[in-house]
């Protein structure tokens, strides 16, 4: 197909070059004149000063500072060097728009007019190209695709991260296209369309999966699906709240969005989690729709919530948001509105899961109350079973149908709208990259200065504003230290990943607390062997554990306990591998979202090959105060019976 198009292009250029003079001798051909004029316009050095054309082509600066299109499918480009030379591609596009039309009606679909409607609309707008002088082409594929679809508005959708569901720690962003007149009519938002960019993995081997994903081995593509599909996927199956930020796009913008989606179509962008992930590509897509916008900036890592902030921070681009509660949120909302005794009944029925007993107990309640308890039970079951589509309940296979049947005999209740907690609003959170500068002292005698760079994302001591409470995820956290007395600089710690989840949930939906970290850190006691402070060794490990977290709500306290196991390598143990079981318990006090105190104690036993086992205890204390959205102060103190005593104060800047 591509070669056919090239051939057509060459033919057209040939025709134009060679036929033009003969025409010109008699009457000047208006088409050739227009083509010449447009070419002159784009060759003007002052044309397109803000590089909008590059946005149409998804140009971006990559990690190495090179500008090129993110699109990796050669069929997306009409010129040989289109991926790297936007001007060449612009010339080729204009020539292709003027190219002769194939007689075959199917073949006509390969004409640039059908294939690249977004490019065409931009060129017409910027060069004043006379549309009437372009060849008449019938785009039957596009017409078929658009038939019956009429959209006039769009929203940027953020699906929240959700603790204990690792696949959703970062959230996800996509777009919703509102059907004409669908807004305002309750219930029909579900029939809107969704534009989503995601990777299409072509392996199920987890090792290959990880490697390929990292190296851009999977193609990323756009898809266009009904919005209800996304609602089932996120709200019901994964229990993630959806935040729908209404974009103030005109109807012309929406037309351009559809054209851009069609034009991008099945052409793929290799999916890299660093710089070409769903969030980054959605921002570039919005720029292709509205090239006057600049939403992207250089960042090592673009996180879905960054996408939201990039859009909401652009003045006038959004007008409020709608909120779609997930299955868990819907359940908790109903559960907390019940009386204490009804909540007890819900706990009892879900625990016993005995149908006749449950129905008998429910029947004793007044009808309205029974309806509310019934609804709460159903929401619980749907959340617990991750119900969507044609799936049937498994654990509650008899209870759910019985409850639903009974529900048909109870009063119809007016559902109250669920208002989101303002603290959860994703656009209000701190930025995701972080620098920390500070200093402290080791063993009270050795002062140090330190600097930390953490590209992503949020740790559990940071302010909860805009983030799920009790969840921390850090990637590639690097901390450097300079020991001022010894005049020695060193890597204090480096973490590939660090996750801590301390869910603040009610008993009925309690999930385990858990943690995982992979990284290397300096051990200033060299596993207790060094008493000539400060020396240091390196300890590298994979550490994970699980336990319980329990909120004591009236006091704003959270207590937690976890059993962990670490496997790793320690330079202080003659480079031997070690295994280290440990226990930790602590308490977090958060009088406000942005002020937190935490104290924890731990006990560990480090066993290494051919070494004497080492038992030690630890005491950690942290205070974090986010005095502004992107500014925070932190005081950290660590003690261990191996001889470590370390205190540091730092200023944290999120950007």
């Amino acid at each position: 197909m591509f070669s056919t198009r090239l051939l057509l292009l060459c033919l057209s250029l040939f025709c134009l070059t060679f036929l033009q003079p003969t025409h010109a001798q008699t009457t000047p051909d208006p088409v050739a004149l227009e083509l010449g004029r447009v070419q002159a316009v784009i060759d003007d050095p002052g044309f397109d000063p803000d590089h909008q054309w590059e946005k149409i082509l998804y140009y971006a600066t990559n990690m190495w500072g090179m500008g090129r299109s993110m699109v990796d499918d050669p069929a997306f480009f009409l010129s040989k060097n289109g991926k790297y030379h936007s001007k060449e591609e612009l010339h080729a596009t204009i020539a292709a728009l003027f190219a002769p039309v194939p007689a075959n009606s199917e073949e006509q679909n390969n004409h640039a007019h059908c294939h690249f409607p977004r490019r065409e609309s931009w060129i017409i707008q910027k060069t004043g190209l006379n549309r009437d002088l372009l060849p008449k082409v019938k785009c039957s594929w596009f017409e078929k695709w658009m038939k019956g679809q009429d959209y006039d508005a769009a929203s940027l959708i953020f699906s929240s991260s959700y603790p204990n569901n690792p696949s959703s720690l970062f959230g996800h962003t996509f777009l919703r296209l509102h059907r004409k007149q669908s807004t305002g009519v309750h219930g029909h938002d579900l029939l809107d369309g969704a534009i989503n960019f995601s990777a299409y993995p072509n392996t199920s081997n987890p090792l290959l999966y990880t490697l390929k994903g990292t190296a851009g081995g999977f193609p990323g593509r756009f898809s266009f699906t009904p919005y209800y599909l996304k609602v089932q996927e996120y709200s019901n199956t994964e229990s993630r709240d959806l935040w729908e930020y209404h974009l103030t796009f005109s109807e012309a913008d929406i037309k351009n969005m559809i054209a851009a989606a069609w034009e991008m179509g099945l052409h793929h962008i290799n999916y890299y989690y660093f710089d070409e992930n769903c969030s980054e590509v959605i921002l570039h897509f919005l720029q292709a729709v509205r090239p006057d916008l600049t939403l992207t900036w250089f960042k090592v890592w673009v996180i879905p919530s960054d996408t939201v902030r990039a859009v909401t921070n652009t003045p006038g681009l959004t007008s409020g948001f709608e909120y779609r509660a997930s299955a868990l949120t819907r359940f908790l909302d109903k559960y907390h509105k019940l009386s204490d005794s009804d909540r007890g009944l819900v706990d009892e029925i879900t625990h016993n899961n005995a149908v006749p007993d449950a129905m008998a107990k429910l029947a004793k309640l007044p009808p309205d109350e029974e309806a509310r308890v019934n609804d709460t039970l159903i929401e619980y079951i749907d959340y617990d079973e991750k119900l969507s589509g044609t799936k049937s309940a498994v654990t509650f296979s008899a209870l759910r149908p019985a409850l639903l049947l009974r529900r048909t005999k109870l009063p119809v209740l007016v559902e109250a709208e669920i208002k989101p907690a303002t603290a959860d609003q994703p656009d209000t959170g701190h930025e995701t990259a972080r620098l920390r500068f500070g200093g402290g002292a080791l063993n009270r005698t050795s002062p140090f200065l330190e600097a930390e760079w953490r590209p992503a994302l949020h740790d559990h001591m940071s302010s909860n504003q805009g983030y799920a409470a009790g969840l921390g995820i850090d990637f590639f956290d690097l901390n450097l230290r300079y020991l001022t007395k010894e005049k020695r600089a060193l890597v204090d710690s480096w973490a590939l990943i660090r996750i801590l989840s301390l869910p603040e949930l009610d008993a009925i939906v309690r999930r385990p607390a858990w943690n995982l970290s992979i990284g290397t850190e300096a051990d200033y006691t060299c596993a207790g062997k060094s008493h000539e402070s400060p020396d240091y060794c390196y300890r590298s490990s994979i550490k994970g554990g699980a336990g319980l977290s329990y909120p004591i709500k009236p006091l704003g306290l959270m207590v937690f306990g976890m059993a962990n196991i670490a496997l790793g390598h320690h330079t202080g143990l003659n480079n031997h591998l070690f295994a280290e079981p440990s226990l930790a318990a602590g308490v977090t006090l958060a009088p406000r979202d942005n002020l937190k105190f935490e104290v924890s104690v731990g006990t560990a036993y480090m066993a290494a090959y051919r070494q004497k086992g080492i038992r030690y205890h630890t005491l950690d204390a942290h205070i974090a105060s986010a005095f502004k959205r992107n500014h925070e102060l932190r005081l950290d103190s660590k003690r261990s019976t191996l001889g470590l005593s370390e205190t540091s104060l730092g200023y944290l800047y999120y950007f």
Partner: protein
Amino acid sequence: MKKSNIVMSSVLVAAMFATAGFAADKAAPKAAKKAPKAAAPASEVAAPAAESSSGEAAAPKAEHRTPYGMAGCGLGSLIIKNHSKGPQIGAWILNVIGYQISAITTGSSNCGITKDDLAMKEQEVFMEVNLSSVAKDAAKGEGEHLSAFAEILGCGQGAELNVFSNLTRDNYSTIFSTSDSKAVLENFRGVIKSNETLASACVRA
């Protein structure tokens, strides 16, 4: 000496990490078995790009037929993957970093089928994707999945919607006697035909 140690340590940890990722993912092969199921209905509507989130993707092969265009147009093939309850450790390391795996797989036909076919398919697809939610709304007597379904049938506005909701509620046990979405759809049609108002209002039923 120390510098080489930290490099060595990091490499070791990276290797352990990769192994852990490999060992922990028992969920992926299970998910892959779902793929043929996804592909079957896609071919039924001559879908050039059958997409599968976990199995072998067929998309590139399909591109020979239609070299460009927007995916997801053909709603004829949708399945909802079964989600295991626990976290799928192996797959998530990429998910954690913004890598999205779709829980619901769409076979995108890239308009291999026409919009008229779609209108007929639309109700089937809607019911396949939303059955558990529609049943819940029907039992309660109202809800957005129920009213969206009524809209697809052509009777989603005002008084007609009320009649539709009441009738659905009264005939709940008949309509939802099965978890087969096509049978449920037929049951709906039967009930609608039995009601004079709806028989004329639900024009697309």
